[in-house]
């Protein structure tokens, strides 16, 4: 597959919504261990609102789609994840105004812009035990994985999944988990895990093209 089309973008969001719904309890449990136990509920609530919005108001291009996703997440997720994922999708939207499809390189570059927004907003660096720890290596992998969108996103998804697991030994320096100090060590970061689910959904819809 050489390009990522509006239809796939739409499927991505639907697939991600289903995955977040399915893994809501898992994400809540991860968050309960080192945060306040709401990450799964926040993400599931936000993405279910996104799905409802998409049904009543199907966007005409990728930019409009991502913008709508971002706006909806901002006003429904709350917590830290709301502004971070909301801002991420708003940024993706800005980068894709009017677009009907994206090639692999563009996909990488819009994800990079999204990551930059997350880092600007949350001020987290690699290794702080956050979303950044899953997204950064996933994008790196994609960059080096060539121009086949399906292959690149699949590789990125695997990296994200591994990277989420690799947050376990980290000491949290950002977000709620940072309040725990040393006690944050030994637990997988919920935000990195939801990012891995988003990347897995991206790979799944890209493979089906």
């Amino acid at each position: 597959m050489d390009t990522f089309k509006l239809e796939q973008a739409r499927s991505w969001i639907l697939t991600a919504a289903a995955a977040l719904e399915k893994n809501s309890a898992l994400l809540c449990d991860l968050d309960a261990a080192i945060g306040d136990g709401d990450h799964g509920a926040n993400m599931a609530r936000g993405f279910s609102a996104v799905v409802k919005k998409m049904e009543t108001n199907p966007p005409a291009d990728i930019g409009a789609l991502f913008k709508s996703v971002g706006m909806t997440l901002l006003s429904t997720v709350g917590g830290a994840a709301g502004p971070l994922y909301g801002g991420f999708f708003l940024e993706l939207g800005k980068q894709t105004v009017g677009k009907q499809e994206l090639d692999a390189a563009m996909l990488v570059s819009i994800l990079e812009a999204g990551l930059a927004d997350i880092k600007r907003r949350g001020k987290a660096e690699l290794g702080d035990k956050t979303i950044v720890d899953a997204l950064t290596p996933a994008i790196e992998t994609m960059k080096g994985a060539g121009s086949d969108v399906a292959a690149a996103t699949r590789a990125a998804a695997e990296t994200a999944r591994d990277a989420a697991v690799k947050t376990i030994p980290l000491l949290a320096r950002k977000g709620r988990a940072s309040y725990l100090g040393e006690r944050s060590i030994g637990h997988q970061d919920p935000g990195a895990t939801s990012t891995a689910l988003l990347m897995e959904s991206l790979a799944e819809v890209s493979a089906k093209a």
Partner: protein
Amino acid sequence: MKKLINSPENVVREELEGIQLAHGDIVRVSFDPFYVARKDAPIKGKVGLVSGGGSGHEPMHGGFVGLGMLDAACPGHVFTSPTPDQMFEASKAVNGGAGILHIVKNYTGDVMNFDLAADMLREEKIDVASVLTDDDVAVQDSLYTAGRRGVGLTVLMEKLLGAAAEKGMDLAQLKALGDSIRATGRSMGMALTPCTVPHAGKPSFELGENEMEVGIGIHGEPGRKRVSLASADEITQMLMEPILSDLPFKSGESIILFVNGMGGTPLIELYIVYRRAAQIAEKHGLKIVRNLVGSYITSLEMAGTSITVLRANDNLISLWDAPVKTAGLRWGI
């Protein structure tokens, strides 16, 4: 999960309906988006004080809306920061033309959401400033972390700034006053039991019959350490010591002492804690000029307590004594 609720999804909406029905003389509730505003807002020429945060901390913040305290409060889902659209709409609704002050507890989510709302308000040419609370000494602060949590000091902050705003202080002055309160208040909390977030349906953590969590926040999160159950006097010592040595509070200073219940702790126990906290403060050479004892910033039905100490001066004392008429705190009117 044993709770007086109908369904986890409707907890916040139904609570707000209850607040509207019970306190319609003081507040009006918006249901889309959720916020609680002073019934008489906007008040022309007065800075609008807006706070908010996850639900589950009642009476904070909705119970602190009214004359002499907040102009509006934005409730998020249980333990989840509210969203920018709530803060934006609430701020607009109580904007009396003198600007809006956001009182924000220092959590990543709260800070980012309020920041977004502030950006939106500025686009509408509304002056916005914000004051943070980050008073929890249980959290080690550093340049590289999210910093400390905002906990009990938030209640005192809302009372004191509310009184100052009522007296006509402008936005810059309020911001400065808020920053000085932030700089001189410290808190710490502990839990005897966890709490259960309705949609989670199970306790946020497990605690043995002989264990307690020390250095807990207000979101059912685990604390900094788990230790053996201790007596009220020992527990009070464990909280007061880090609080007093952190600022540090010095002999001869005047303070406001606030002993807070976490939601599931009865008043009889809070007085036993207050007793010891007052004794420790006095031994430390501090003069308690005002106090507050009760469950004002809670963590659902968690059993436990937190203590807040704020340096006081004549100005703060007169702001403390100023009339307040809210569902959760009321005197002088």
